[in-house]
């Protein structure tokens, strides 16, 4: 296990810049998740660290050693892909032991046995060790694939959306397991995904990627509570953050240059309004059980109808058609370029969002 450093790494394919001047430090024992939509450059970044791609510019260091031109096999990294690739003719045990039996590693057989059983227990597949890989369910197969990476103790584990092919229930289960195992092993993981829930729930730090650039990195809480731009703000949160024009809130205090007011559920006080000057009207309540979404139609600004979607407790007494008022409390403010305007007293997010 070791620190991994990317220094000004750039990689283009023809005219497309996939990764642009990206610098990132991953500390030993850290779980870093790169979050971004399809085509943002996350997978290319992962492949650059693995050595499957060579950067056009910049350096990659693993444990202080410059590995920019070193082949994948000599980098001491382990990769887990989206599609589990197991050896179908081998048992679960042999699949797990395979990486340790490589001639160049020279691991003694009893050490291999110990390691395989330990990892199998951690992943709760120890009762399946003698099964053929093909006799497993999808979730079990993906556990074996993850286990095959974990039996080794490489400098870094590189994972490319390893949970995306699983169903929702299994994904939720493995999210929790992966987080626990990483902590138990003290493994260093670089994980890429487009799923905000995976990023928020597992990461020590989340790096938000936009068109090949790392636009912000921080703990999930920092990224959620203290985003640098509207792009970052809209990456996290369900329902998504509400982006509204300042004109809707004529009596609220705002910093100069505010072009967008961004408000999450926790930034809005919704109260039932009396007759006359209500700010909005409840159009629809989406009852998702514990999490009800309140859809509120607001006034038009410059001919555009604005809406707010916010979480409400099931028993607030607010109903469809009710006139409501919105009061801002700790909302975030952004300028015309979408950059955050930070002033004392606004956006009261904790900057040291340790979990």
């Amino acid at each position: 296990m070791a620190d991994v450093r990317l220094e000004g790494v750039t990689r283009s394919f023809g005219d497309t810049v996939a990764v642009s001047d990206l610098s990132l430090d991953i500390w030993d024992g850290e779980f870093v998740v790169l979050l971004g939509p399809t085509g943002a450059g996350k997978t290319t970044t992962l492949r650059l660290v693995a050595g499957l791609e060579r950067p056009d510019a910049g350096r990659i260091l693993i444990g202080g050693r410059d590995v920019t031109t070193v082949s994948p096999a000599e980098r001491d990294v382990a990769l887990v892909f989206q599609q589990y690739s197991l050896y179908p003719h081998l048992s679960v045990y042999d699949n797990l032991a395979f990486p340790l039996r490589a001639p160049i590693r020279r691991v003694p057989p009893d050490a291999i046995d110990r390691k395989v059983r330990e990892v199998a227990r951690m992943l709760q597949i120890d009762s399946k060790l003698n099964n053929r890989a093909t006799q497993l369910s999808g979730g079990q197969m993906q556990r074996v694939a993850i286990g095959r990476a974990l039996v080794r103790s490489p400098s870094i584990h590189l994972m490319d959306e390893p949970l995306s092919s699983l169903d929702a229930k299994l994904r939720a289960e493995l999210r929790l397991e992966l987080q626990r195992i990483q902590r138990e092993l003290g493994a260093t993981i670089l994980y890429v995904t487009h799923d905000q829930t995976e990023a928020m729930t597992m990461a020590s730090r989340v790096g938000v990627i936009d068109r090949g650039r790392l636009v912000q990195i921080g703990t999930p809480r920092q990224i959620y509570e203290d985003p640098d731009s509207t792009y970052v703000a809209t990456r996290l949160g369900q329902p998504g953050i509400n982006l509204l024009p300042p004109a809707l809130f004529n009596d609220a205090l705002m910093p100069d240059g505010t072009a967008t007011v961004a408000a999450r559920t926790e930034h809005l006080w919704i109260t039932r309004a009396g007759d006359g000057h209500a700010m909005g009207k409840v159009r629809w309540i989406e009852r998702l059980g514990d999490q009800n979404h309140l859809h509120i139609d607001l006034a038009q600004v410059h001919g555009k109808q604005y809406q707010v979607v916010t979480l409400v407790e099931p028993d607030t007494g607010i109903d469809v058609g009710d006139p409501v008022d919105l009061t801002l409390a700790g909302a975030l403010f952004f300028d015309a370029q979408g950059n955050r305007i930070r002033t004392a007293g606004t956006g009261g997010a904790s900057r040291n969002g340790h979990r």
Partner: protein
Amino acid sequence: MARISIQDLHKAFDDFVAVKNSSFTIEDGEFFVMLGPSGCGKTTTLRMIAGLELPTSGLILLDGEDVTFRRAAWRDIAFVFQLFALYPHMNVRRNIGFPLICEGVPRAEIRRRVEETARILRIDQLLDRSVSGLSGGDLQRVALGRAIVRQPKAFLMDEPLGVLDTELREAMIGELRALHMRLRATTVYVTHDQLEAMAIADRIAVMNHGVVEQVGHPRDIYDRPATRFVADFIGSPPMNFLSVRTCLAPGQSEILVGGVPVTVPPLREAVAESDLVLGVRPEHVRLDDGGGIRAQVYGAEYLGTTQIVTLRTGHGMVKARLPSSSPVRVGETVGIAFRPEKLSLFDAAGRALRTALHDAAALTGGRRHG
């Protein structure tokens, strides 16, 4: 106008029973969702309503008229498959009007109905555009327009949003719901996605292995699941289950969970000593140092406004949805307590026991969406 009544509907394919003696009624103007895992019989039921599949036994009534064995084309029902199937070489107007052209409707009438449909869907400004340049959302609207323009008695939809990515899907749920509120046409909608069902339905039928487990308003299904299957299928994370062995008397409002007294809604029936299951939704679990049930924090998943905390108890894992401002540390031991009036109890067969939770059930019988 369409009221669809299903009576003792049964469908077997050789040895496999796809739908088992189902009965329920879909009221006129209702948005009715059939929900369940794959293979539960929801699509087969929909296809029988459409006339694409004939039942082994049972009746289907459309506005009181027996249509069980009537041909699909004579049922006056529009079946919407996955929504993206458009003719790429035709413009929006022709795509929407195509079903009417096939029926030989006079041109002036087609023109009037297509324009009215486009207005309802708010795509009237796109009528003469080619469909190839449209955004994903507009393509969906055109596809819907083709179903609406026929003015059928009912719409049947089989996982219409299945292929869409999350963002567009959420937007389309809102649109379908808004459209329904304008048209008020009876809609039967099939999905395996419980969040989609909760978001869009007036009433939901939850199905499992060909059996209708519960029919009710989304809130009833969530708050008062009739079976353990329903409780487990609805909600994310789903309901927690704790095993208890006890006997119960009517009026009793306390049970022992591993020796710790837990207050539950007062019982409305008697149960002889047996293995029962206490059901607790994650949002009804709270950390309470005075709480008698001890638990160790196994993991915490930050979700922004809230967090899901997984707790290891002597009765299995329990998930709690807590404000993300509550501090929890993995590994620490905490006390937990439950919100008494919201708890469910199930018998060994998975049927919900009658408690005070069901007393108020009659009160929520009205329509959800004004």
